[in-house]
């Protein structure tokens, strides 16, 4: 598939993310499944006249969405998320249909955050969030070691001077 601009950034996100996203997707799907289940089982006893077919359609939609969200999308994401930390800038590329490439000069980086929910933490992954004065950019699912290493690297390279902002 044709990529945006030449020389794509080289690094990819951690493949363990596949498992994390898979489980996350399945859980989300199960949660969503509650809605049609409630509809089909409980409400039917109360309101006899509602057609069954809607319930099953919703189930179908949720199943398809979950297959996409838990299996297909993570694969594509792994393939398409790229980043590169150079001495004077950070280059991030992501997206499947709509591909976006972002360039952040090192001197614009104001602070870094690592975020991790319980699922990610179980797999030893975290999301690195890079904030400039204006916006926030994320690199998801990096291994914890990698993200603290990057934090150290970027913190050393980033020097926001007062006169510039």
């Amino acid at each position, binding site marked *: 598939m*044709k990529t*945006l*601009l030449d020389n794509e950034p080289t690094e990819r996100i951690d493949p363990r993310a596949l498992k994390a996203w898979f489980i996350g997707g399945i859980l989300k799907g199960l949660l969503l499944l509650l809605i049609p289940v409630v509809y089909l089982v409980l409400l039917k006893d109360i309101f006899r006249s509602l057609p069954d077919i809607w319930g099953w359609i919703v189930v179908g939609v949720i199943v398809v969405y979950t297959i996409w969200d838990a299996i297909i999308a993570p694969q594509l994401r792994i393939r398409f998320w790229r980043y590169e930390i150079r001495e004077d800038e950070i280059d991030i590329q992501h997206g499947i249909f709509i591909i976006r*490439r*972002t360039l952040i000069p090192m001197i614009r980086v104001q602070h870094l955050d690592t975020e991790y929910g319980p699922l990610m933490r179980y797999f030893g992954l975290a999301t690195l969030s890079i904030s*400039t004065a*204006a*916006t926030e950019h994320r690199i998801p699912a990096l291994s914890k070691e990698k993200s603290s290493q990057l934090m150290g690297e970027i913190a050393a390279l980033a020097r926001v001077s007062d006169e510039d902002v």
Partner: protein
Amino acid sequence: MIIMEAVRSFVYMLPPVFLFLLSISEEIELSAVLSYIWILVIPAVAFFALSTLRWYLYTYRYEEGYLHIKLGLIFKKERSLKKERVQTVNIRTGLLQRLLDVATVRIETAGGGMESEVILKAVKMEEAQRIRSYLESGSKSRSHVDAEESKGDISDNVSEHDTEYGITASYVLPIRKIFLAGATSGRFMLLFSFIAAAFSQFYPYIPEDITDLLIEQLIPESNTDILLIVIILLSLLLLSWLVSVLAYMVKYANFSIRRQHEYLNISWGMIEQKEFTLKVNRIQALSIQEGLFRQPFGLCAINSEVAGGGLRDQEYVTIICPLLHKRELATFLERILPEYKIPTSMTSVPRRSRKRYLFRTFVTAIIIILPMQLLPYGWLGLLLLLPAFMLGLSRYRTGATSIDDKQLTFRFRNINRYMVLMVQNHIQSLESGSNPFQRKSDLSNISTSVLSSPSGKIFHVDNVDDQETKKIWKFFSGN
């Protein structure tokens, strides 16, 4: 200052009291009220005493590159500001303040947050100017300036580190232009909003028969009556427009902007006068807007995105010039903000993006028209198609980018037409995105983010040619 504070507290107290009295108006007799008026004297005296106390305890001192503030009797508060950290000095006067020849000085430093802002209320006018020049002559010429010395014109205090922008230039907006600005600003509902607000406030108090009479008058009984109603409405609209223009003119009267070394001094106002001092490097981007009503005349307005200062009660200066003719743009910038240039030529988006622009406005129009079909007269929605087409075409023709030395310029149209000038130093990040269709045609959308108040702002030009995107990428990247 005592008078100021006392009057101000008193004035703040009045409306609630008035409303309170109004709400219980049915129960009290007017004569009884008058005899109780002396009750108001007690709070007046209390305010006076409080204000005196506050004045006595609030002191400031400036020397040796610092501004010290002290406040408090039981809970003392002291703050020292380093002169170099001062980014904005605002001087503001209201009508009352002008009568007493005082002003409010607000000082903002770098860093943001509660600690970064200092407000000096009711300072004498000359003193306010003195404070300002003292703080302004900050960063480079520290050793030169004493509080006494800085009474005069700031150009006397030129330091040996004179930058190449050591100019003093000014621009004053003539009354004719202020009128034009107000007339073309697109505001004309002022009178209507007044009427609506007043009406909603006093509605419960209007006696029944008057409301009946009004309703009778307004509902037309024959065709001639409708004509009359329309004429009345139109003349009300005209009046409202005139009132809005007048209000605008009063607000921005005496607009002037002055450039001194690395500071911009912007002031305007007739009743409430505002004066802002802004360090030029706080400007993150300049945006030149040609509003719908202005573009046909070749007029535009210049606004700026400014990095925010303190947090409370913010008045972000963004107006650089409320109205300007396009041919004056280049000279204006040369004299007032030579850091920014109008590009002599821009690279427009390529031919093949035309259908993308048209497609987008069309689709939006269709999304609105389709549900309209369910309503009576829904077919009127089809009238939207022509303006949608024209908007799309206009957007295509406006889209352009340009790189000049260290400056990136975007030109685009949402409804109004914009040209945004950004210097590389102040661009926070660059992003390029594309969907599969764009990729096939070697097109992409490009967007930048700059720091604005209160948060970042993103500008984008859509469907730019890939070659141009690569150039912009290279401009921004180190490699």
